[in-house]
């Protein structure tokens, strides 16, 4: 096995993990952009997506497509309940208090999942087989193509939604200045709720498409959530290309680091990147300096 195909494999593995991180990162970005808070329960939506699909598929014996649809719906309902019960009642709370509440909610959701489904790890069957595909001496699974495909689709949909629809524009307006937005007749509460709905749906979708690869269990959300968070920090909290690049960069560095330095430092690499970005360029790598928010 020569070095070039080894490098190709690291890059390909890195990119496919990176796409997962980016997808999870989106959820963070959308809620942050609508409310200014960082929802640390985002990882739990990822877990819920995977676990609910397995629950419907294996325990209720539903076919895969309805199982996925039901799982996304139910995870979204959890997102709505979370916003209505834990975020909205706290009027005028500081973002920091809300962030702490999201951490509490994540612990609660994780605990409930553990009680309901137990501590076992579960595997979801791959959507289209598990025969590896060969690209430039490196291999990739059909499931990776699903991940790339769905990530691209979600990026495009996001772009269209936030730039070309009235609701999307209204959500962005709330992010810039919620008071001004309410003055021009935008219902800020609805927009916040909508951001939770979208990010719960995207998060659970991410959890479902990665479950055949990484398997899933009640506590899978912690690490995946953190990696998604790092991706979105690198990307400067954008709900577009920045987060995608952030995720891909994180995946690549992890994979190359594990390959050429040591696999023991894989997670350390991710967190060192997080710290560096927060210290040196807290606005993210790809974002132009903003001048509003006086």
């Amino acid at each position, binding site marked *: 096995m020569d070095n070039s195909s080894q490098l190709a494999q690291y890059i390909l593995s890195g990119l496919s993990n990176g796409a997962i991180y980016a997808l999870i990162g989106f959820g963070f970005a959308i809620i942050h952009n609508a409310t200014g808070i960082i929802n640390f329960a985002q990882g739990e939506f990822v877990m819920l997506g995977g676990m609910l699909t397995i629950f419907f598929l294996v325990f209720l014996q539903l076919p895969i497509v309805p199982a996925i649809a039901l799982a996304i719906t139910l995870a979204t309902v959890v997102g709505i309940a979370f916003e209505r019960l834990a975020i909205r009642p706290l009027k005028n709370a500081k973002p920091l208090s809300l962030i702490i509440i999201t951490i509490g909610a994540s612990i609660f959701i994780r605990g409930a999942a553990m009680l309901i489904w137990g501590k076992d790890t579960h595997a979801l069957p791959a959507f289209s087989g*598990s025969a590896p595909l060969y690209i430039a001496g490196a291999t990739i699974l059909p499931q990776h193509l699903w991940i790339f495909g769905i990530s691209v689709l979600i990026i495009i949909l996001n772009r269209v939604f936030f730039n070309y629809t009235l609701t999307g524009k209204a959500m962005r307006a709330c992010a810039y200045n919620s008071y001004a937005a309410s003055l021009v007749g935008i219902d800020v509460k609805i927009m916040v709720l909508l951001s939770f709905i979208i990010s719960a749906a995207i998060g659970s979708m991410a959890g479902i498409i990665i479950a055949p690869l990484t398997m899933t269990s009640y506590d899978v959300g912690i690490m995946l959530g953190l990696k998604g968070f790092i991706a979105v920090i690198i990307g400067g909290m954008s709900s577009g290309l920045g987060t995608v690049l952030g995720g891909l960069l994180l995946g690549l560095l992890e994979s190359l680091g594990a390959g050429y330095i040591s696999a023991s430092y894989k997670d350390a690499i991710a967190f060192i990147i997080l710290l560096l970005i927060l210290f040196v360029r807290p606005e993210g790598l790809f974002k132009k300096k903003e001048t509003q928010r006086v």
Partner: protein
Amino acid sequence: MFKNVWKIFFVLVIIMFMAGSVIAADPIKIGALFSVSGPAAFLGEPERNTAQMLVNEINKAGGIKGRQLELIVIDTQGDATKAVQGVNKLIKDDKVVAIIGPSTTGDSMAVIPIVEKAEIPLISCAAGIKITDPVKKWIFKTAQNDALAVARIFEYLKKQKINKIAILTVSDGFGSSGREQLVKQSKESGFEIISDETYGPKDTDMTAQLTKIRGGNAQAIICWGTNPGPATVARNIQQLGIKLPVFMSHGVSSKRFIELAGDAAEGIILPSGRVIVANQMSNKEPQKKVLLGYVSSYQKLYNVEGDHFGGHAWDAMMLLKGAIEKGGDNPAAIRDQLEKTKKFAGIGGTFSYSPQDHAGLTKDAFVLVQIKKQAWTLVK
């Protein structure tokens, strides 16, 4: 008047109950420390179930010499602090005559000093070699040593004329103990370790490590970990199209591993207790009857197949039963009788304890099994 009649009746009933408990002998109290919840629940849960099942069976059959057994189970949650609290409670409050468990090596090492000081016999269900090496007077164990599992794999590799290996171990207690043995024994038996990689217990992608291994010239891959990591490794090996023979540890010898790894599990070889291949054994082997009995009664009660791990508790409980039958309920006598146990055919193997050996098993305790068509096959 009627009120008085009732009063007298109640008093009589109470007296009868008290008298009853005086006439029947006290139950013999046995303590159990299992990690029923927490990260090592895959060990503690079948162990607790097995121990409880056996105690119920023994009691139903009239107990030991007419005395009932009482099992007091404490959940250590795989946490050494909780294990220490639990063992203190068992010894001081419950006054148990013997203890089985804990499930993990970490918990076992934490409770050993306390048990030794209190002079209560303990039969650990954990695999770590340091539990009984050096031999400690009051400590026995039933789980097969990692060293034996490694020896079994190396013996097979030698037969296949393979001497260059790649190892991939999980960075927790189980993995590092396995890695230690792999490195030590590979030196002793002339194997060359081409790559020595690790992964985190929560990692979900090991392609980087395996790509590195693929780049080397190893002839076989040995992975040491407990679920779900090895299942991911198996899937990644399949994804990378690596065609080398793959070996796993006894840590994954449960049906769960096959379920998780799916068809990526095909062809993987691992050392295991005989319990998962009980029906493929020859009738001459002394363990066969015991194994089949255990598997079927566990299945009847809990609707899942009894596994390797529950077997550790089966062995501990039955060894203890034998010792109590001969030695009575005195902790010191139980200990002496345990040490005299010879050729006890259990689930994990055939145990023979001696003053120099409190682990009791040889490498014959392990058989190699290969996964074929989602089922275990005995490698002959």
